[in-house]
């Protein structure tokens, strides 16, 4: 069985590891911060470039490159924002870090803030993490008392503070420009890019870096081991570890940290997660949070990889890194892998997903606002026993009219599940119109 390789979650689940600063210091905490202060901000940036680190929030954008886009000439203050909104369905990794090892995030943030020269940093945490926000506030107080935060940190001449800002139950606050609007005290309406690239015109119209919790923790480990060493974990273009979150129909759902590409989907599900439920067969997998396109159990995935080599995979062969699920026509997204076995009513599953996007659209763009409501209504009507012959095509046509026509990537996030579910399970969507099954009572779970 593939062995976990824990860097970020190294201590989190050790029985005697606690989240207070004394325990963190005993485990070498804030030593890397002292190392960082002996370097120049640009040297740290170079290490992050060398590491090949890609963002863990969803898009997998190279972190060093994002930092490079920062407008340093504007003369305005620079801000660092940690995206701790964690709301992509199927994702629960950032919670583990913040609840069990908050100082790791804070150390990663101070090092990152020093590198980009941000004196003010924010953690935007989803509102339902009541306890998480308290834990972070306490950890920040502890760090301030020990002079790791505040004025002239450890006599380095660098000053920085972190403010914890709670959201209030809206998924769109995870989208970085929506997050910024929310942090400014407005409705979280995403901004249009260009011109509002956060690195140029972000928080308070100032240059801003938004990074995910796991991404910022990685910065600490990069400074610790050097970017070059970090880049040896995983493979080129897919460096470091990733915390995968597995949920749904497996025996041992949970979060598991592995080097990128260190295992295949089959190894993850059948070995690490203890396989499917007894007597069940795989039906489908969503590999990167509910916004990712669904993969059908019996699909073949063929094509060419970035390095030119050809691949021909079954679903179990997909390597778990950034590029594997993308090569299979989906994405690794937020790292949330949702498993559905043959007890799943696929139309109900899609209906559950469309209800999510209908609830969460911010309503700014007409195709998104109207489209998600229609996709919810149609899929719900189908589940209610009133499916029509034309529904599958109607759903597809609506999704196709959202994609590419919106301000933010929520439009795609809402369209992709519909496109892929209907396309890959057309037979089941069509069959619904003929038999109109009402939610089955055969022990299968009701999903809508």
């Amino acid at each position: 069985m593939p062995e976990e390789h824990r860097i970020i979650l190294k201590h989190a689940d050790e029985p005697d590891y606690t989240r207070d600063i004394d325990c963190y210091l005993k485990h070498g905490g804030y030593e890397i911060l002292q190392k960082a202060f002996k370097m120049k901000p640009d040297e740290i940036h170079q290490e992050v470039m060398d590491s090949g680190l890609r963002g863990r929030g969803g898009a997998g954008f190279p972190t060093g490159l994002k930092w490079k886009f920062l407008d340093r000439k504007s003369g305005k203050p620079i801000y660092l924002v940690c995206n701790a909104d964690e709301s992509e369905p199927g994702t629960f990794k950032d919670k583990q870090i913040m609840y069990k090892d908050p100082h790791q995030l804070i150390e990663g943030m101070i090092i990152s803030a020093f590198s980009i020269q941000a004196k003010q940093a924010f953690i935007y945490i989803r509102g339902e993490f009541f306890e998480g926000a308290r834990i972070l506030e306490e950890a920040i107080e502890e760090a301030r008392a020990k002079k790791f935060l505040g004025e002239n940190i450890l006599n380095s001449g660098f000053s920085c503070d972190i403010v914890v800002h709670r959201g209030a139950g809206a998924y769109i606050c995870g989208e970085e420009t929506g997050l910024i609007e929310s942090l400014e005290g407005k409705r979280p309406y995403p901004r249009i890019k260009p011109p509002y690239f956060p690195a140029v015109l972000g928080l308070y119209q100032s240059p801003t870096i938004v990074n995910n919790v796991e991404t910022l923790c990685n910065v600490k480990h990069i400074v610790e081991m050097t970017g070059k060493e970090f880049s040896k974990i995983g493979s080129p273009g897919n460096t470091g570890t990733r915390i995968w979150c597995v949920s749904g129909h497996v025996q041992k759902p949970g979060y598991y940290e592995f080097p990128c590409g260190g295992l295949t989907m089959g190894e993850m599900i059948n070995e690490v997660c203890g396989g499917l439920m007894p007597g069940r067969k795989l039906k489908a997998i969503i590999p990167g949070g509910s916004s990712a396109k669904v993969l059908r159990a019996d699909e073949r995935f063929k094509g060419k990889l970035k390095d030119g080599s050809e691949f021909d995979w079954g679903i179990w062969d997909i390597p778990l890194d950034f590029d594997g699920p993308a090569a299979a026509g989906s994405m690794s997204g937020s790292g949330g892998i949702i498993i559905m076995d043959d007890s799943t009513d696929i139309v109900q599953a899609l209906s559950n997903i469309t209800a999510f996007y209908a609830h969460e659209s911010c309503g700014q763009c007409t195709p998104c606002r109207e489209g998600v409501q229609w996709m919810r209504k149609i899929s719900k009507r189908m589940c209610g026993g009133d499916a029509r012959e034309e529904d599958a095509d109607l759903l597809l046509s609506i999704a196709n009219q959202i994609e590419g026509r919106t301000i933010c990537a929520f439009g795609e996030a809402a369209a992709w599940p519909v496109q892929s579910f209907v396309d890959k399970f057309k037979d089941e969507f069509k069959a619904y119109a003929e038999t109109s099954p009402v939610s089955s009572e055969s022990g299968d779970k009701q999903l809508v």
Partner: protein
Amino acid sequence: MRPLKDMELSQETIAKIDARVEKYPTKRSAALPLLHLVQEEKGYIPDEAIEWIAKRLELNPINIYEIITFYPMLKRKPMGRKHVRVCRTLSCALRGGYQVCKSLQEQLGCKLDETSANGEFSIEFVECLASCGTAPVIMVNENHHENMDEEKTIALCRELKKNTT
């Protein structure tokens, strides 16, 4: 418009509000945190809070009102003393979230999206709570309850009903 009562807040909340406003480069950024603080004390956002917060942050009431109407966690009327949030999203549903929700309604004598007549319970569906690995998940006030099933739901409800005020 009917005249509004003055906003009465505890000294403790006022102190927290003053400290919060200080933390941000602009006053407006404190809007959502102030709404959270008011809701923590009052249980919901009363009419007078909208004007009060707007004044405190040198904004117009509409700037506050439009935030309240956007965010699901901000409430315009009191919720039950035990506010139960049930995750509705896919990973929880795949492991029985809807059944848990049904059972909760039966046990607590409170319908989904309603507050029980005695003001004790409210039940609402919420979207993914970032605890999908321990699905199905619910929250009671600020605490998560994970790996829920029929048995655990019955035990929890018994406990919640025992502590009725």
